[in-house]
């Protein structure tokens, strides 16, 4: 019997798991995919917004503003890449300038520090911006984060502190009897729990419906992006927004914590909640909008395009509350933008809801820090050589583009919530994130995964179960079957 069962291993579920790990409760997190951070948390703008944008008095505004300053400590504890680069919201015409002043007022109500900069100052800070820029709203507290490192780091730290994780565990039924739930997964495993936290992202309404809670609906809104290689660390330093319209934040051009550049997203409601395909027309429209703020975007540096889904509730605000059907079931739904930026506050809010039900004692052994990641890129020559002497796998660079060593890959597999797929390795330590998109390193990563997981090379998957890379053997005389 678990005290708490969390459904969904995105940033919200993982953050809640880690927050509740601070208490003496028996906790498990169920994730339907083969890894945490596999859906919305895996495909977004990777921004910790300052919080000037959401309408005042919404949960979005309150939790975003409350969360923003908390990330410095969280990222330090979990060793997550995080840079406070500040954002510039760009106005290109008089009407947009007016909107900037409205946003400035809104920022004041939300309690967010902003400043309107004139053209000269804006261009001084971002020389590659279009000459057509008139003014910009500068928000110094806006930051960029590595959402994979954050989500995975949260889960790893939660597990370090006793939380259990079950992957490939899609919840298909929930029964309630004698004050506890029985949760059944597609793989026929069942779990008993006193409390459920529904953090199932775009599927949160479907999960709530399993206990006949149909009080809200989630629609998926798709956002498509371009990813550029890290060709020039100074191409864009701030996170740049075009002044928002009714369609949301409009286009974003932002550096990532590894100096790639993200350009996107589009914003379209879709019917199928697993449709993360990209379309040419949509990306062309993103391009056009992006070109309005920077005319000379080097699209020959594009190394990937992707789409992510946002969970939009029918209230258009976050839904964080006990279910109207059963108080032991807490919905954390409709976590669209600024969900990542508000995730810290969301976890705190859910914690308070849980503690109101069950005042669990603090866990005296809770350690907020995960073991530091081994990142060769931040070591001195001497430190690296000492490490290589101790463990030569750190001398063998497997990923040529991102310069990742075999040792770093092994380490990310061996940790709690460790990588078990090629994409899992990519999300954690970056091989496959570069210009070659894994063309050089993938066979090496497959070999390392097979060795570490004690499976055959052809059993290694790209991402989810079934996503085989090299299904058929040709040289060993034994054939793998369809």
């Amino acid at each position: 019997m678990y005290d708490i069962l969390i459904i969904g291993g995105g940033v919200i579920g993982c953050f809640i798991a880690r927050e509740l790990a601070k208490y003496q409760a028996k906790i498990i997190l169920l994730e339907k995919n083969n890894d945490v951070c596999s859906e919305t948390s895996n495909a977004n703008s990777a921004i910790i917004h300052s919080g000037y944008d959401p309408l005042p008095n919404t949960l979005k505004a309150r939790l975003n503003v409350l969360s923003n300053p908390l990330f410095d400590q969280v990222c330090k504890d979990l060793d997550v890449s995080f840079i406070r680069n500040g954002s510039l919201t760009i106005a290109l015409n008089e009407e947009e300038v007016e909107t900037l002043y409205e946003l400035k007022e809104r920022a004041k109500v939300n309690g967010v520090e902003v400043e309107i900069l004139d053209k000269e100052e804006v261009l001084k800070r971002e020389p590659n911006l279009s000459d057509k820029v008139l003014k910009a709203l500068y928000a110094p507290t806006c930051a960029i984060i590595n959402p994979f490192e954050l989500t995975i780091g949260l889960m790893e730290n939660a597990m370090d502190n006793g939380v259990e994780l079950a992957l490939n565990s899609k919840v298909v039924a929930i029964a309630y009897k004698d004050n506890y739930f029985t949760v059944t997964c597609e793989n026929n495993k069942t779990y008993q729990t006193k409390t459920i936290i529904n953090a199932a992202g775009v599927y949160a309404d479907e999960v709530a419906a399993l206990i006949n809670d149909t009080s809200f609906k989630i629609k998926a809104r798709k956002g498509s992006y371009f990813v550029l290689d890290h060709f020039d660390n100074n191409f864009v330093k701030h996170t740049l927004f075009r002044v928002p319209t009714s369609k949301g934040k409009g286009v974003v051009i932002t550096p990532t914590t590894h100096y790639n550049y993200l350009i996107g997203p589009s914003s379209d409601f879709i019917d199928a909640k697993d449709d993360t395909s990209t379309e040419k027309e949509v990306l062309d429209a993103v391009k056009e909008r992006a070109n309005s703020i920077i005319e000379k975007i080097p699209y020959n540096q594009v190394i990937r395009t992707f789409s992510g889904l946002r969970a939009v509730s029918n209230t258009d605000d976050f839904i964080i509350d006990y279910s109207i059907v059963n108080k032991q079931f807490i919905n954390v739904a409709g976590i669209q933008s600024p969900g990542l930026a508000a995730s810290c506050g969301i976890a705190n809010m859910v914690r308070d809801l849980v503690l109101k039900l069950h005042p669990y004692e603090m866990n005296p052994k809770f350690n907020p820090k995960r073991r530091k990641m081994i990142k060769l890129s931040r070591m001195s020559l001497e430190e690296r050589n000492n490490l290589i002497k101790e463990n030569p796998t750190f001398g063998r660079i497997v990923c040529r583009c991102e310069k990742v060593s075999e040792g770093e890959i092994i380490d990310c597999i061996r940790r709690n919530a460790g990588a078990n797929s090629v994409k899992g390795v990519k999300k954690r330590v970056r091989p496959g994130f570069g210009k070659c998109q894994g063309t050089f390193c993938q066979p090496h990563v497959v070999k390392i995964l097979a060795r570490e997981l004690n499976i055959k090379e052809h059993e290694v998957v790209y991402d989810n179960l079934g996503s085989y890379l090299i299904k058929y053997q040709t040289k060993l005389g034994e054939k793998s079957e369809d």
Partner: protein
Amino acid sequence: MKTNYDLVVIGGGSAGLAAAISAYDHGIKDILLLEAEAHLGGILLQCIHNGFGLHEFKEQLTGPEYAERFANQLIERKIEYKTDTLVLEIKEDKTVIYSNKEDGLVEVKAQAIILATGCLERTRGAINTPGDRPSGVITAGLAQKYLNIDGYLVGKRVFILGSGDIGLIMARRMTLEGAKVLGVAEIMPYSNGLNRNIVQCLHDFNIPLYLSHTVTNIIGKDKLEKVVIAKVDENFNPIKGTEKEFQVDTLLLSVGLIPLNGLLDKVNVPTHPRTRGALVSQNLETMKEGIFSCGNVLHVHDLVDFVTKEGRKAGYGAATYLKGKMHKKGRRIITRNKSGVSYVVPYYIDVENILDNLVELNFRVTKPFEKTRLIVKLDDKEIKNIFKLHMLPSEMESVLIEKEILMNSNAKEITLEIKEG
């Protein structure tokens, strides 16, 4: 550990091997060659088909056989080399930083550097193919490595995007391993591969080639299920209503190669917008004195024999530089591509340092030509007018210019163009 060398060669494939051997034979003995993979030979090791060495040895070798001959020459000369060793950085002062398991992270100081790091395959991201992101979409070269080196077949029902040579070779190779190759789509109205590969790899196996077609959708949740292709118009936009669907588990991409010259980023060496390789002289010296570039990292070749030849030239250039026999740089003649020519390598002729009696200019044409003339001009003066029966974009062309003509001219530019009719 030795941390000073006259010459550091980066890359142990066909270009790097030829460059190191040639530098040695021209009197430079203090050489270190660094190779990223476990064995010398580079991409040749996975090219187990034959057809290599027709120019070099007048016989047909497989890739590994061709590589072995040069690897043996390197070893016979006792040239120092390290495998499983990745170069992380080249600095302006010709410091080379490499890493491996045995030595750790090491800085070596070189007097000259030859960059021979080859190229990488363009990926789905580089061409923005729309659709889902399942496994089973893979570059042809990676599928080739899995099959020929590791012994794994990536799938059994295959479609191929792009008619580059690796894609064509893999169409045949996967067919021979029992896979069904349903077709090859090429966005251009002509093939991008060598003619002999079209015949021997597609026609001989009844694999259809869809010219002026591209992949417009990729469908599959975790594993590839289906690709959709469509005919394109003259602006390469898909034409509605011409879609065809193929149920496949594998989409191979053979859509071009890009020089792998990230190491030049910190050395401030300008690159060519078309080839994306460094700008070099006829001695294959980049704009940074003492740093040379050859093989596919300079521009993508279609035959390994030509890579070997270019590697030798870089070795000779580096040896001449190291012996202090290069003259101070003086007049330059810049090469220009005009109508019908997409690029010319080298970028310029270093007139004070023409080491042979002939200067070879390599170029590619922009589209297939038949019965045309190649015109070479020094400024406005025509110096060559050569009849060409066939020229294809997939086949590198070359023209030789006499040293004497170049020495006796005051021209600033040398221009290559194709005249039809």
